[in-house]
């Protein structure tokens, strides 16, 4: 098992090191609230915080040690109601060449393609976190009938704007590249532009509704 540091105690048995600068802290269902609270603390020892699925990764500045008050900060009560993010309506062209996996996913779910699309578009999704590519949203809220595993063999090139399903998550590919999620449609929205004042269209905590075109 992971060798524990000798000099610096890791403050909770649930925390895990990733290298000498990353500390993975489980956050259960409170990932975003915890992320926001820790960001607000502004610990100088912490260079970056990566929210993910049920955990956050604290990235220490080089040479820094865990802030003594971190443990306390992580146990502080969280605000009961998280701030509601922006609601984005994103137009989607479902199926066709941009959604090659849609017919097979509908069949798997025992649904007509139109019904599958209706269900996908009926939900307001929450942006759980961004990862994989700049601006790639992991959208929580996909109806369980629509869950679908990743492709056994990833595609070498998924076009930018592809609307996709990976396990229990819905997502949108901001840029072209290799990808293993199931593709069901295409959105014209520009999800990431480094030169924009807000480079990522969607932020953790925002909400998304897909509008069939």
């Amino acid at each position, binding site marked *: 098992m992971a060798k524990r540091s000798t000099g610096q105690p890791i403050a909770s048995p649930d925390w895990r090191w990733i290298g000498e600068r990353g500390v993975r802290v489980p956050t259960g269902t409170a990932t975003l609230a915890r992320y926001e609270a820790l960001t607000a603390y502004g610990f100088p020892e912490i260079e970056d915080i990566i929210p993910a699925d049920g955990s956050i990764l604290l990235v220490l500045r080089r*040479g820094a040690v865990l802030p003594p008050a971190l443990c306390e900060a992580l146990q502080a009560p969280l605000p009961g109601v998280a701030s509601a993010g922006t609601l984005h309506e994103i137009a989607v062209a479902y199926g066709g060449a941009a959604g090659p996996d849609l017919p097979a996913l509908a069949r798997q779910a025992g649904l007509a393609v139109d019904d599958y699309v209706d269900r996908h578009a009926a939900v307001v999704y929450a942006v759980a976190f961004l990862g994989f590519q700049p601006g790639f949203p992991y959208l929580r809220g996909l109806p369980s009938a629509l869950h679908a595993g990743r492709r056994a063999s990833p595609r070498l090139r998924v076009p930018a704007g592809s609307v996709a399903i990976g396990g229990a998550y819905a997502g949108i590919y901001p840029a072209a590249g290799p990808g293993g999620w199931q593709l069901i449609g295409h959105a014209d929205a520009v999800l990431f532009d*480094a030169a924009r004042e807000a480079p990522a269209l969607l932020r953790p905590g925002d909400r998304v509704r897909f509008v069939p075109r």
Partner: protein
Amino acid sequence: MIEVLQAGLCDLVMDRGRPGQSALGVPAGGAADPDAFAAANRLVGNDDGAAGLEIAQRGPLLRFPRGAVVALTGVPFAARRSSGAPVAWNETLVLAAGESLHLEQARHGCRCWLAVQGGIAVPSLLGSRSTFLPGAFGGHAGRALRAGDCLALGMAVREVRLRRGRPPLRDAATPLRVVAGPQAGQFDDAGLAAFFGSAYRVDAAADRRGVRLAGPAVSHVRGELPSQGVLPGAIQVPPDGQPIILGWDGPVTGGYPVIATVIGADWSRLAQLRTGDAARFATVGVEAARALAQEDWDIRDLG
């Protein structure tokens, strides 16, 4: 100014990267060996944050119409100056107006870094001048250099002194040092024995997103887990058991178990892996890894 007369395989404008943007899905990136890169900057009198070039395997032919003060760190390349003067590594070099510098092939390893007095003056995006190739932004037009490109230089911030640097001694023949976990517990004994007891071959390097390894399969109990934040150096094991060392431009989250993470002090060696190289791994503790990361270059004035 720098004129690119001939491009190398992958010449990228780099600086220290853009840490702090991971929540947008943007990795810190930046020079693959931050210490060697910072040393090159110090050798030309720049601040550590100035932008320079990261050059992989086969380098460019560059012309300096107004001359320049430059320094090279990283592995030595076969290299020539149009003046015929020697191209020393880890040392301040003064190029005359109109002189060109040709960095041909790496003699061993993969990458070198070129710092220029004043730094390369490309626009800063998300707090950095580093190229992020997977997202096609940053650096020079979000891409590797091409013949015909011209790079503007910034103003010198201090007087140049001729200097020489010496990197911390690191034995390339020893295993790469890793901190085990966080998912080491998900691997069975056979998987752990394979990973820590075998030599892996580098399948495809020179890609800043990651280095694929080939060797005895590292078996584990569960193939996927909820996505977690990851860092460069983290070694993910997909279901086929062939490990992948995540690179500087790799994703900020990953869904495969991470068996171990290469320590910061060994990024200098990670940056030099190339296809066909052997890689072995040995664990160190977090505290030891942090102490090793404090080792720095020894830089002295000449004469």
